[in-house]
């Protein structure tokens, strides 16, 4: 727009014509339910994918044994494992930002996609190590993995509530796995911690941290949008 005298006059005379209320043009994106659904779906698919891949890693090394007829299926694990993992990751991924917003500030530490990707890579690496590296004994393996998991939390999360939630969910998941194995849904080749492997809680913890990281990153978009609309 050219700055002509006419324009100057007009704007001067218009004086304090205030800004109108922001319209509903972003309502679709900022609609909480839709957003929640999208995020949940994304997290679910990520969980399913990771479960499939990591299970393959474990089955390949004969760490877990599923009933033989299921092994021959394409996904090399029981049908219920990926959906369970997916649901769990969706819940975790939604829970983390939710708790963040309840407690106070959203999580600000290293909020970038590259960092999230790094976190996922480290998580896969921990799984890899648990399946492929030959340790002298199980205690060593479990301790190493625990250290790695804590390192993961420290590198990518560093929030106290993240740690607490991770530990709580890991314990819960461990208990569930114990029950599942006890009821012979599946079994481990060489259980050393009641019915399961002792490194399982560490893996669960690392998984919770990872999924929480992804969930927070996804929630960041919603947060940004909401902030924008509120500012307006």
């Amino acid at each position, binding site marked *: *727009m*050219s*700055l*002509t*005298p*006419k324009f*100057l*006059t*007009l*704007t*001067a*005379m*218009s*004086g*304090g*014509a*205030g*800004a*109108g*209320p*922001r*319209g*509903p*043009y972003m309502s679709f994106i900022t609609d909480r339910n839709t957003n929640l659904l999208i995020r949940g779906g994304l997290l679910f698919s990520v969980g399913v*994918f990771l479960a499939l*891949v*990591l299970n*393959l*890693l474990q089955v*390949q090394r004969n760490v877990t044994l599923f009933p033989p007829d299921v092994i021959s299926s394409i996904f*090399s694990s029981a049908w219920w494992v990926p959906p369970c993992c997916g649901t769990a990751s969706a819940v975790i991924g939604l829970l983390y930002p939710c708790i963040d917003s309840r407690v106070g500030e959203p999580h600000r530490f290293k909020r*970038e*996609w*590259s960092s*999230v*990707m*790094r976190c*996922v*890579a*480290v998580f*896969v*690496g921990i799984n*890899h*190590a648990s399946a*492929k*590296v*030959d*340790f*002298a004994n199980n205690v*060593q*393996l479990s*301790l*190493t993995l625990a*250290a790695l998991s804590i*390192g993961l939390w420290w590198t990518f999360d560093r929030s106290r509530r993240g740690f607490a939630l991770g530990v709580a969910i890991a314990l819960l998941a461990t208990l569930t796995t114990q029950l599942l194995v006890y009821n012979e849904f599946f079994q481990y080749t060489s259980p050393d911690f009641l019915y399961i492997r002792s490194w399982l809680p560490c893996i669960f913890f690392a998984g919770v941290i990872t999924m929480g990281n992804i969930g927070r990153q996804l929630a960041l978009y919603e947060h940004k949008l909401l902030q924008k609309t509120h500012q307006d």
Partner: protein
Amino acid sequence: MTLREQLRAKISAAFYHHGLLCASYPVPIILFTSASILTCCYPLLKLPLPGTGPVEFTTGVRDYSVPSHEPHGDQGERPDWYRGPPVAYIQQVLVKAAVSPWDSSLVPVDVFRSPLGQVFRLLEEIRNHVYSDSSGVRSLESLCLQVTDLFPGLRRMQTVLPEHGCLLVSPGNYWQNQRELFDSDPDLFKTIQKHEPKGLHTSATLRDLLFGVPGKYSGVSHYNKKRVVTYTITVVLLSYDARFLNSLRARLKQLHPSANCSLREDHMVHVHFKEEIGIAELIPLVTTYIILFAYIYFSTRKIDMVRSKWGLALAAVVTVLSSLLMSVGLCTLFGLTPTLNGGEIFPYLVVVIGLENVLVLTKSVVSTPVDLEVKLRIAQGLSNESWSIMKNMATELCIILIGYFTLVPAIQEFCLFAVVGLVSDFFLQMFFFTTVLSIDIRRMELADLNRRLPAEASLPQPKPVPLRTREAPPPPRPSPHTITLQTPAFRNLRLPKRLRVVYFLARTRLAQRIIMAGTVIWIGILVYTDPAGIRAYLAAQVSEQSPLGDPGVSGLSPHLAVAPVFAAGDPTSALNIHPAPDPTPVPENQSQGHHSSVPQITWGAEDEEGWRRLSFRHWPSLFSYYNITLAKRYISILPVIPVSVHLSPQEAIETRHPHDTRHRPPLIPKVSADLQTDLTLYKVAALGLAAGVLLVLLLFCLYRVLCPRNYGQNGAAHGRRRRGDLPCDDYGYSPPVSEISPLLLRGHSMDIECLASDGMLLASCCLAGQIRVWDAQTGDCLTVIPKQCRDPSIGGENLSEEDYFPLRRRASPSRLALFTDQPDLTPLIDTNFTSQPPSHLSTPPKEGFDYGSLVERAYTEHEPPSPSSYPCASSASSSPSSAAQPQRRLSVGDGGGASSQERGSGSGSQAAADWESSVWAMELRGNLIAAGRSSGKLEVGLWDAVEGSLRCRNEDGVSGITALAFLNNRIVAARLNGSLDFFTSCARPAAGAPGQGSMPPSPCYTSEDVISCQLTRSVQCAHQKPITVLRAAAGRVVTGSQDHTVRVYRLEDSCCLFTLQGHSGGITAIYIDQTMVLASGGQDGAICLWDVLTGSRVSHVYGHRGDVTSLVCTTSCVISSGLDDLICIWDRSTGIKLYSIQQDMGCGASLGVISESLLVTGGQGCVSFWDLNFGDLLQTVYLGQSSDSQVVRQLLVLDNAAIVCDFGSELSLVYVPSVLEKLD
């Protein structure tokens, strides 16, 4: 000062100096870094190539003992897999048989029938061989590898492969080891071929397995020129008994002595096979790599504000990768051979090392002030981030050290690699990446600053304060000198998903690339697995095992040759260097005089390890048939037992099958054995060629489908650097730039404010108040209307015709744009001396020729903000009007027009007051120009080819006219005080003929007509606040005002039909056309669509941050632009935003619709054409040579598909390029 701070300061200073160093000597440092990378990677050459190729180890036969499981003390040259007993020992009996002397009565089948028949006797001999000594009796049965069932799924091989017994394979297996079957077989060749797999195969075939030599060396074919048949009997032994084997060897040699055989028999080769990677193992690996690439992508995406994003991203990746290679190389150099699977740990190493430091460095450097020197910028950026870099590195080293103390070998090794990798990564970051960054920054300094600075500087004053409040906060500027660079892709488009996918494919050429990569990989696999391919050749070269000076053999012999590490100790090389083929291999009882074909059995070095010619999957596949895996295990291959069999022609004829002679294949004398292989070679070549052609065609088709446009037009170097970033759409597509030179209409001395056109004519008005009329077709300046110019000359001098020339000459676009910062003084040059009688010089109150004051005034007018009027200084410019005026005045006589004109040109003081008011609105219809002034005067001027005369004037109003509409013969003027005046212009023929009632529909007046302009109605309180916009179409007048309302009036009776309420801000833009579409946009950024018939609101959308500056509707969409320099395209029926286009700064309002699907927008020195349906940028036209300075602020689309845009003080007339016309 604490220790920490001291440390910090020291680190910072060190980094600062380092940055200075890097930026000062970029080339030597890069050379040094490259050299050190290469040096560190040099040890990698010694490592075995990654892959599943087997590894060999050679020991002597004489003192052989089964290696123990426990590692020995003297592990020196022994590989670590050489422990424990092997899976099996392979003993091959290499049989070479020939019918000699060759008789012309023999048929080709005789070449191999009787020699093959010998296998049964040999088998019998081997099976029944018994060695007895003091320790007992040993037979083959007790020593051999007993196999059970074949692997399920290989049932079809049951007839040819042994089951439940010794694993003993020979060509006799084709006939179940029974001589009777062999003798009764009418067509041996067919039996052999029967089991061959169809199609292309790369691994071991059954024929290779049974014959033990590659098919083409076996000599079993009809075209065997040498007439020697070669095959092996392969005995697989479970345990090694030297004495038994020696006796077997002696026995066979005794039976079938090989006269000229000098094969060495004192070496056994142990072959270790690696694990073959299955698909299940690949999936996690691929996943980790995908995550790795996502990580790299998300990381490098953050590199911004640099000259070449891709270059820096590449540098970052190179940094990380070469640091990894360096770490592996260094570790190998110091004796740590990697045992981990490199491919598996590689992604984790990259993740551990990370790209973070690189990004932090880039960010820190680009955020330093731009006006600094490059050296200093680099140094500052480095030292700013030095502390955090060092801290991160220390933390990572600590974590890795902790990992090292887990004492798990695998983790320790990983940590060792990671530590070395981290250190070398740090080294590379500091030397390589920093230097690359400095080069990049320097390039940006040179190129971008020159380009961007004037652009920024030439921007007008900041927008007024009230607008600022509604705007988004300006982007933060770190320092007053820092230039915020635009992001390269400044066109945000929102497209349908389908199109996005297609564009994505097209942009990245994904399909082509995948196909190409697939082809390359396929070819690579073929070459790699080809038994006699380049791999074997290369391996032979590397391992130096090939006989010197005999490339023919070197290309064939070693197959399992990925063993450069252990090759040094291979004593066979000694043999191969001095190959010992017997110079005179004369079989016994040979009649030399027979016609040249004497089959000669020769034993060469290549026979010694004939298994090398086989595929490296030969043994694994043989064992896998019995479900025995050789992965991570080894087999020991014993030296071959050579057996030569000479058969007489009588024997050959006796063993003939009657079938053989009947179906005697045509013997082609010149057809050689090579020809067959040649034929297959040709076939393969032809197939490959055909496949290649097909591939090219396919690629071409894909290219045509995915990239329909001609990308090639956009030459790579075409003006890219000169123009800077071309406007491109979101997908990086930069359309062809056409450098058509637009018609520049020069003449205005100040910025152009109003533009009006009716297709044929074009009127423009500058801030100085000068109105110029141009021919829209040719761009000629037809007339100049400096206000009041006729007043002084009304007294009247009659001018001669020659006087028109000065005007013509000056009106043509001749002014050079050299001194744009100086006022244009050309109007002051008076060349029309004849019209200036000297007496005028002495008449002060009128227009004097005080040149000094004129110049002074011109200078004061050049000050942009003061809207002072242009002086009517040039009598030359007024002379045409003064030429016509006297006649008209004479002819007009009395009348309304005359009276009004009389009033207008009344006194000098009034005229002087007029100069002070500027033109705020202008309309052009036919040859009438209506101009509304800030003083409230309405002027209607008539223009024709020679005159620019004022025909009537109305100065009833006191408030400035902000908007004008000129429809048919009515003029509507909206005023600053909110009132609306309706005028009717009437023309009367000069002769007084009855023309009052018969108003021509198109107001085209002749100069004789008398124009009167009567105020028919004035709506005093049309709006509460100033009327900002006024549009008239389809018999309606629509006004928009600061009072948030839109009113619709009927044009005929000026009756207010509707008051439309719905905006929450002042109205800033209105669009109405003949189809009664009404759209309005306000300061709230809202756009409303109305139904003009009912006055109801159809839709209401918010799209802009700040005012809506202009609105255009087409039948399907609404195009709006706002103060945020964003052009939004909305679907008209649904009100959904289709996409938006980001404009250059200050060009927000410049847009126009040429046709239903063609949008034109103005930019910085250019206009761009867009496809409305898809949001494609079609073409960009640069308006001037100096592209960077001016911004197109107004744009007008003429009827003849020409575009007029203002370009500072100039007008540009652009004819729509012919490419676009085709689209319409």
